[in-house]
């Protein structure tokens, strides 16, 4: 019983910790703000790729 109680407690703490980290990312749109900074770097990279461009 003590083992199950501890497991539930740890699970609760892990879920709470994950929530406290991820909810602000979700609500303040931090995921999109970060990915929008990656996009220009990727576009520069694509411009450097050699392509067999033709009709």
């Amino acid at each position, binding site marked *: 019983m003590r083992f199950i109680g501890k497991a539930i407690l740890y699970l609760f703490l892990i879920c709470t910790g994950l929530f406290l980290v991820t909810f602000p990312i*979700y609500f*303040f*749109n931090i*995921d*999109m703000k970060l990915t*929008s900074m*990656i996009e220009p770097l*990727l576009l520069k990279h694509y411009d450097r790729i050699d392509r067999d461009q*033709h009709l």
Partner: protein
Amino acid sequence: MAVKKFKTMVNPKPIKGDKKYGELYKPGGKVRKRREWRGVGDTLYDYWRWLGILLTLGKFVAVPRNVKAMFRYRWMANYLAVPMMVDRFTQGLRGEYLRMAHEQQDLIIIDVAKLLGNIFRGDRRIGNDEEFSKINVLVDENEMTAVMMGFPNLKSTSRETPSTYVSVLLNQHAAEHYIDVAQEYGLAGDVCPMPEAEAGVSIDDDAPILGACAVQCNTTCDGSLLGNGVISRRLEKEDGIPVFQLPAPLRHKEDDVQDYAAEEIRRAIKFIEEHTGHKWDWDYYFECARRVNYATKCRNEWLDMNKTDYPQIFGGNLALYTETNYMAICGKVPEFERCDRRLMKLAEKAYKKQKMAAPEYRHRAIVWGVQSHFYMDFLVWLLNCWGIVPLTDMLSCINTEMIAETDTPENREQAYYDMAMLTEEMIMRNRTHGGYKVLLDDLFEFVEQYNADMIILWEHITCKALDGMHGLFEDKARERGIPLIWVDHQLFDPRVISRQGVRDQVNQYMRTVMQEEPLDPTLEILDDDNSW
């Protein structure tokens, strides 16, 4: 004639959380300041679904070849914006409406992730799994996949769906590079930018190379024929992938073309059998046919609900889900049937409770014409900004008939005609071709059936099939006293008419002709030209 006016309905239940959605936009920004507060329950639900989307994206990125593809294909950069697309389509939604939108959007995301995974696995540049490549049959983006309903072990793979179609949903600027490439190589600038961008992907050497063979269809217009010509030349002459041209009749309502249409379906199936070595399986065909019928039944019932005072599944989510489920899925993926059941339950629950999706319903609109793809969430804006309920749109007004679903000798013959009918009546082409009855007369029948008091008429400025009817639409609307708002756009290219340019046309009409004030004034003018 007096102008028809729907009596405004006020939502007895207040909308929880944010109400001024325009304040979430960061002027000139690519993304929004923060996500929407929808009250505790709905915010937590949306957050839970967001975690699910991140899990889908995480699983996708965990496969090394998918990361390799991210660095190879320019259009893959648009997939950074997946969570934002869902935010755009769920703006202002609460309760069952939020849940229905997520059911639809999240399943589409999973399905596109699977499609991308399959493409990169078989792609000669990325995964180069030759055996897997051989079970792929390439199809157009805007193509009914009915001819694949009898091949359980083959995959109908559209390269254009992720490279152009979904990309523009994610990022309004996604197709600009490819449109420019196509025009640099001399392709006309006054054709539809959708096939032009698809051709641009091929010219720019940015299309994955895989598949045993390909089936192209004369989908909707001169532009799609142009694009297919460019793409098939590269496929056949350079990549060694044979292409079948499936020319479905344009006069699809005429009886005298149906034998020919069915014969073309037979030829397409024979072509696929010859090039893949797989044989047509009637058991699987009728299994898919039953799922197609179930999807049709659900869609008919949703549209019937939308004819009442309490519409439930409508707007951009109806349009996007219908396009995916009807054409790309076409009964082949059981998960969509399960999603239909969940959607039906949610819709019935909300209908019984007489729920409303916005604080007020001021107008009931039929949305007609080819919608602006770079601003597909415009329908959500119509509802939130002006209280205009987009009851149904042209692209969701597709087949309502059941097809043969039991395996008998007669039905095996009928099946070719059913597949031909589905192919002829693909989304968009079922209205843009087939005569003025399907494009013009049907619109005004829908106005009556849905008790609509407004028409939002998209004018895709390079779609010649629709532009020729401009005056006839106006005459009919005037005769019947229906306010008709023209909304010009250029489908894939916001440089020609921006999202604000689209909104301005409605804003001006609503203020000057209708003499109304917006429901949410913060949404009237938004600085979102740089936004995804």
